[in-house]
């Protein structure tokens, strides 16, 4: 017979933290629903503060990203679903978000979704789209930029000259 599990404040909050983390894994970016906020690097920290309150720290991609309010609400809803009612969502600006924080898994998901992921090694050259952007459909690097500003603040519009498909490119920031 296993020893009776001793409930201490420590492992109670460890369990709470675990429950919060797995619930947060279901929160996606409302504009790019294949990416979780963790894949994007928007989720910065999860911790338990006094009175078993779950504090979630997020950072915006762009200063004016209109998805931040939705993301905050989605975080609260996801936590409420797993019986966590005391939630505090905090928005931090520093350090400034960069596309370098996007996880490898996130980049892969983005590609499969049909959006070219940001080129890595974000220099000013790649920030300005001077690097070669591969088509997410056929992989050709024979592509051209159609518009610097795409459907959302974080994307530019490209066209593949090989397969002729237009596609979104997640800009470097």
């Amino acid at each position, binding site marked *: 017979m296993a020893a009776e599990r001793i409930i201490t404040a420590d492992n109670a909050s460890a369990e709470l933290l675990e429950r919060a983390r797995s619930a947060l894994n279901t929160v996606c970016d409302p504009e790019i629903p294949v990416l979780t906020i963790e894949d994007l690097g928007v989720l910065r920290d999860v911790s338990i503060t006094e009175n078993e309150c779950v504090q979630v720290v997020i950072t*915006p991609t*762009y*200063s*004016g*990203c*209109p998805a931040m309010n939705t993301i*905050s609400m989605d975080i609260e809803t996801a936590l409420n679903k797993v019986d966590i009612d005391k939630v505090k*969502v*905090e*928005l*931090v*600006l*520093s*350090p*400034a*978000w960069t596309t370098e924080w996007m996880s490898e898994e996130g980049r892969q998901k983005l590609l499969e979704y049909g959006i070219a992921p940001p080129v890595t090694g974000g220099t*000013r050259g790649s*920030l*300005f789209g001077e690097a070669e952007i591969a088509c997410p459909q056929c992989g050709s690097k024979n592509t051209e930029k*159609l*518009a*610097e*500003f*795409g*459907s959302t*603040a974080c994307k530019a*519009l490209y066209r593949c000259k090989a397969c002729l498909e237009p596609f979104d490119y997640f*800009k470097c*920031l």
Partner: protein
Amino acid sequence: MMAANIDETVKVDREALFQLALRLGDTSLILGHRLSEWAGHAPILDEDIALSNLGLDLIGQARSFLTYAGEVEGRGRDEDTLAYLRNAPEYRNLLMVELPRGDFAFTMMRQFLFSAFQLPLYQKLMQSRDKTLAAISAKAEKEMAYHLRHSSQWVVRLGDGTEESHQRVQNALNTLWTYTGEMFETDASLKALIEAGVYCDPASIRDIWNKTINDVLEQATLTRPETGWMQSGSLSGRHSEHLSHLLAEMQSVQRAYPGLKW
């Protein structure tokens, strides 16, 4: 929601810091609003989307600065209260950004003259001893690099375009030139903030700004106007009539239904 704690290690006059945060926030807000007026009216769809995106960045920056201004002031005013319930004389934005949007050439020339200043300003403010101003600037700087590039390309295209586009963008430059002096202005309270390492001396940006302006104007085959008398007034809240008209529209819902939320 924003965690913008005031840095207590930096000893500066609260009122001066409040005014600076308003100046940065109001300038972004009013220019962002002017850009939003293009939604559905730009000459081509791509540009309609681009102008909205630029406006969105600016309004995002304004939200951060105004939230911070409210905290520094310490009278419980938040970003919305500051944006929607102040009158024109309480606004601290540069006069240049409140001018009506004009034609597409005017909008692009203004965006260029402004971004060419704002990009190096944010780069300097990233080193500000005020951690919140530094954090907002670090975020905004990357966005501003896109704004400068986009507006520069349009200034070149219009200037080196047709006779009509050249004339329109040259006219825009001539009109806007007298409004560029204000970006470099300081007063006693800004000087104290520069001294404390919170703000940067705008005079230190002048060479960078001049170089950007001269390079782009040359490519665009445009003539740089003679620098003479310059417009002034926003540091003390003296604005053109255009700001009141803009605020009347921007604030109409909050003025009609004070405290309304959705």
